[in-house]
């Protein structure tokens, strides 16, 4: 009975610690998807000159973590009350997987999207790339450092408690 209890304890601490490390990994996935989304967006604006919302809807199709934000943006702007930067800023503020510094950079992009010649739009999207890559690099490092540390500590604590129990 004790062995079963100890085993359950180890399993639950591992699961809990993985849960605690999840935001680090989710942030990486979210940033990767936003980066891919902006890569898809550039030719839709620059070459096809699609209206911005239509370009957003087309570009987000392969990115399930971006699509809900685009749907929300369409909803918010559909009211006809907000300018693009207001709507975009509101929606990015609501995206759960991103961290504060990620949001700041995306919101800054919202101030210039749609407002200039296509070549400037492409330039803005190009300038965003190194910023997102920098965030992504840091997110991956944080993921390795913190998420693994939390998971390892959780597992060690679970095993330690199990040894004491047994």
């Amino acid at each position, binding site marked *: 009975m004790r062995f079963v209890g100890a085993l359950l304890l180890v399993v639950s601490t591992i699961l809990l610690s993985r849960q605690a490390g999840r935001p680090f990994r989710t942030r990486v996935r979210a940033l990767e998807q936003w980066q891919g989304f902006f890569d898809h967006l550039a030719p839709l604006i620059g070459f096809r000159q699609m*209206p*911005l919302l239509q370009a957003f809807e087309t570009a987000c199709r392969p990115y399930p973590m971006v699509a809900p934000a685009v749907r929300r943006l369409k909803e918010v702007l559909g009211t*006809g009350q907000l300018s693009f930067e207001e709507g975009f800023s509101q929606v990015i503020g609501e995206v759960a997987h991103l961290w504060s510094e990620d949001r700041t950079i995306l919101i800054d992009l919202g101030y210039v*999207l749609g*407002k200039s*010649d296509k070549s400037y739009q492409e330039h803005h999207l190009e300038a965003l790339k190194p910023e997102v890559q920098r965030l992504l690099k840091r997110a991956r490092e944080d993921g390795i450092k913190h998420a693994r540390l939390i998971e390892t500590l959780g597992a060690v604590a679970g095993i330690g408690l199990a040894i004491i129990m047994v």
Partner: protein
Amino acid sequence: MTPWQLLPHPWKDAVGLLSPFQSESLEEMRFRVGRPVMLYGNHWVEELTGPQIPRTVSRGECERILDILVEHSLYAHLDELRQGYVTLPGGHRMGIAGRAVLAQNEIQTITDISGLNIRIARDVVGAAQDMYHRLTHLGLAHGSLLLAAPPRAGKTTIIRDYVRVLSNDGLRVVVVDERDEISGQAPGDNGYDLGLHTDVLQRWPKAEGIHAAVRTLGPDVVVVDELGTQNDLEAVRFAQHAGVRVAATIHASHREDLLVNPWLKPLLDEGVFTAVIFLSRRQGPATVEDIWDTGAVVAL
């Protein structure tokens, strides 16, 4: 869809509160920074009032309206903006007043927006009937036509209906629609009914569009709105020499206005246009004032 329905709140709501007469006859809505919003109908002018409507319009408000009406996508409208207007879904036109940004003597964009003039495009079935009957009676209906009128006299409304009449008569018509105003087409919107045999070259510059239409689409008639440059008029001559009729509009009130145009006069002298129809607003938009038979031989 009217252009007023595209406006953000509270302007859209205020227009919704107008009397049925005003709603039906409303032609223009003008936003000017530091001034009240004015409504212009056929022979009436009134200030827009209503709940939440500010006494005067701010620059920020003008920019917000522009942002919303161009679907937050200025880059997709810059070619138009450089000419001082934006075409809205449904073929409605928004004129823009502001500061031109120049580079190498060319307008790059407009900033510091100080005024917006939103003008409704109307699709009036039968608008061209009177003109068509008179042309038929005069034996001029089978030649190239030039519709001349000052701004807001209904040139586009009448030529849109004329396209429909010709097309439903079995003629192959190509509309070179540089500003989407004749067809009213927009993404996801097929625009106005232009008849069974009409093709639309959307957003093509007029001269290039006329050449492409003649070379590739085998039209009986090519239709263009607002001829302006020497290139446009040369393209009309090209179409005529290729045996294709042209129906076009131009800004002018009288014969004298046309004859002082150094590029148009030779075309009139050569008989490129069989008839010139002068329009006015005297009895409402698209009133046919005069038909000038230029004396050109009509090929039947």
